[in-house]
């Protein structure tokens, strides 16, 4: 959950960097592109294994040794790449005339992004954003490869001890129990936005 908040913020930053125009920002754009290509290209499980086993093994004093910490970092890195692409699609879907209107009022490029472009972009990409978060929710199961005990690992332990397959059902139910409320929350957010824009008289 903490990971999701971090991802939402960093991915938006990345998407904004990638949308900066002009040759001056070419290095920034290039870095953002390389980042997205890189972390979308590597299997998540590989990133988790590399960071989860590699970073603690480096034995650098100031770095956290916890495998859970590095597993979360891995998921953040990977999902930031995916989510930034979702944001980018949203930002590009806002018609340039909206930016022109904002800039014509004397708003700076950043103010136009902040108040006009991004609010519209985010509203449009809420459903695909949720898609990625459900994916993230499920990918927490990958952390088990590090030996960290999460839901799937606990289930395997129980199953092996009791020789009882229904533990897997319980685990599946747990995952669904988390993702379904998320899905309904998204629906509600989308519906509320539509209501607001079409029904007048809502105090703003």
């Amino acid at each position, binding site marked *: 959950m903490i990971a999701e908040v971090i991802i939402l913020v960093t991915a938006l930053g990345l998407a904004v960097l990638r949308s900066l125009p002009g040759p001056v920002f070419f290095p920034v754009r290039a870095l953002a592109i390389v980042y997205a290509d890189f972390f979308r290209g590597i299997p998540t499980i590989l990133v988790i294994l590399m960071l989860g086993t590699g970073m603690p093994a480096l034995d650098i004093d100031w770095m956290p040794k916890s495998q859970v910490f590095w597993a979360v970092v891995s998921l953040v890195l990977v999902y930031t790449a995916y989510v930034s692409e979702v944001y980018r699609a949203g930002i590009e879907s806002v018609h340039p005339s*909206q930016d022109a209107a904002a800039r014509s009022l004397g708003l700076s490029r950043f103010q136009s992004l902040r108040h006009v472009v991004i609010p519209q972009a985010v509203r449009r990409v809420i459903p695909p954003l949720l898609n990625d978060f459900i994916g993230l929710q499920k990918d927490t199961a990958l952390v088990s490869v590090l030996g960290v005990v999460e839901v799937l690992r606990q289930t395997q332990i129980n199953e092996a001890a009791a020789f009882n397959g229904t533990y897997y059902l319980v685990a599946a139910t747990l995952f669904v129990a988390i993702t379904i409320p998320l899905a309904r929350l998204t629906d509600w957010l989308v519906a509320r936005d539509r209501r607001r824009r079409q029904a007048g008289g809502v105090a703003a």
Partner: protein
Amino acid sequence: MTEPALLIEELHKSFGSLEVLRGIDLELAEHEVVCLIGASGSGKSTLLRCVNLLEPIDDGRIVLRGEEITARGVDVNRVRRGIGIVFQAFNLFPHMSVLENVTLGPRKALGLSRAEAEQRATELLRRFGLLDKRVDYPDRLSGGQQQRVAIVRALAMQPGLLLLDEVTSALDPELVAEVLEVIRELAAEGMTMLIATHEMSFARDVAKRVCFLDEGVILEEGPPEQIFGAPREPRTQQFLQRIIEAGRL
């Protein structure tokens, strides 16, 4: 000789290999209303967008009240605060209420407090008969109402120059009048305006001068009586003939 409100000299603008503006010279005095007429693609919209610095120009210069705004290093945000523009497609912000649309500029670009901005917006909305719409979102309004809100949004910045880019072209015929009425009122108050329009009878009414744009140059300009009554250039005559045949004059 007083300083012109707006001075455009030898303005050139190309999109790729297409030269849209091929040397525009134009001068607007304070409180003057000038209408730009001409076929679609003649460069009217591009000219307005250049004046508002929404399009970088290739050559020439634009001077606003003595300041060359197309010079290097000019703060475009500051310049734009003093120039209002209203677009053909309204371009209201769909995720904001009418009041938020109108107060965004004054609050963020002028640094007014929310209370000051809302007071200014409320006065303008009341004046143009839109006060009861202030909490509505743009999707709920008619085209004419949306365009009036867009005009109010531009006016809330208290611009010294207003650019209108075919503001009635996207409207149903019965909604055109309410928008033109607003513009007439502004003209009567002495607002300096540069108006691209297809409404010839309106141009004849409201403009002190009319410029006929053809293929990126101002082919003919003069008082409306002359342009509409006795155009000299064959191209102007042709254009007006087509307008008359279409029943728009």
